[in-house]
């Protein structure tokens, strides 16, 4: 894959990377750093990319591996994170305020999940099948189904707390 092809592919799939950064980065700087790190890791991993697998599946693997293994100290305390997560820069021209609020609440709730659960819920929201999720995470589909039910329950609780302004 040439550099131009790589850039084109990344551009076409950058929504995935942005969402991973939004979930794993607590501040804007964290998210920008993580975005850059994912691009660097993707480019380094290009020689290992086998054309028989989907580019997006490979991208999910590299991006999630990078985000989950990113042990840099986070820049802000939890109180500030909450405010920043809630003010994610999502273009609001085409989304009604209510939808935007819901999405921000969801991001804030996902931000409070453990790292692995964040990855599972993100793939679920991306409408990946459990088999695809297994192919990306290396966890059996059955296990993922069970965990997803628990995560849904946890998120319901978290979003309720966030909407009511409690922790």
């Amino acid at each position: 894959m040439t550099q131009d092809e790589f850039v084109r592919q990344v551009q076409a799939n950058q929504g995935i990377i942005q969402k991973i950064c939004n979930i794993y980065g607590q501040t804007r700087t964290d998210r920008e750093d993580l975005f850059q790190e994912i691009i660097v890791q993707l480019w380094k991993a290009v020689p290992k990319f086998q054309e028989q697998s989907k580019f997006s599946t490979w991208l999910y693997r590299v991006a999630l591996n990078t985000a989950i293994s990113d042990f840099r100290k986070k820049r802000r305390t939890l109180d500030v994170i909450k405010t920043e997560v809630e003010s994610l820069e999502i273009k609001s021209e085409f989304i009604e305020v209510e939808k935007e609020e819901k999405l921000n609440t969801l991001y804030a709730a996902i931000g409070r999940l453990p790292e692995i659960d964040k990855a599972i819920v993100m793939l679920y929201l991306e409408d990946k099948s459990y088999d695809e999720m297994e192919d990306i995470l290396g966890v059996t589909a059955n296990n993922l189904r069970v965990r997803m039910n628990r995560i849904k329950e946890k998120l319901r609780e978290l979003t309720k707390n966030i909407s009511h302004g409690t922790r």
Partner: protein
Amino acid sequence: MELDDMKVIWNDKSIEGTDANKISEMIGKQSQSPIAKMKRNLRIEVLLLAFSLGSVTVYYFIAFKGEYSIIGWVYAVLLVLFCYYFFRKNKLLNEMQCSSCRVKPNLELQLRQLERYATFYLFSGTAIVPVLFIFLGIVLYYKKPALINKTILYPSLTNPVWKFLLAWFILLSVSTAIMWVLNRGYINKLYGRHINKLKQLLAQINE
């Protein structure tokens, strides 16, 4: 809020994009991952040691009309040992990450390799003490024979073999034990948090 209802909003493509030039620029930047930083630190260590040990080795071969070339040989052997040490560390670091792999096997690989790396660091960092003492003892034995009768570290007519062996045993075991404790604390400070975090992630994934 039901998660399934959120899928439509989630998949709305209205997230701000990054242009192609910016992505191309990012490709050329250095990785800031812990493993990339460890590799960079290792490269600096190699350069510093190669320069300092290499110059000392050459110095002892050339200076004093070659009279102290034995010390040069000692340093040359040390240099070879360090080369192996760096080669092994570099190999472990190269095998530590497989970002194209599935998440769980990648975390398992990272943990396994990092623990190997830390163990190798601990053993080699500790073993260097007895190795250096023995080298120094050999050098002094040949170059300062006058010392032999003045210290219990060498066998002589007045110093029986058991005393000489006991002295070395005490010297080596005490210094090695101290080095072991110091190294363990240092390595734990360097990699302990990283290892614990990986264990925590694997515990989460195996839940």
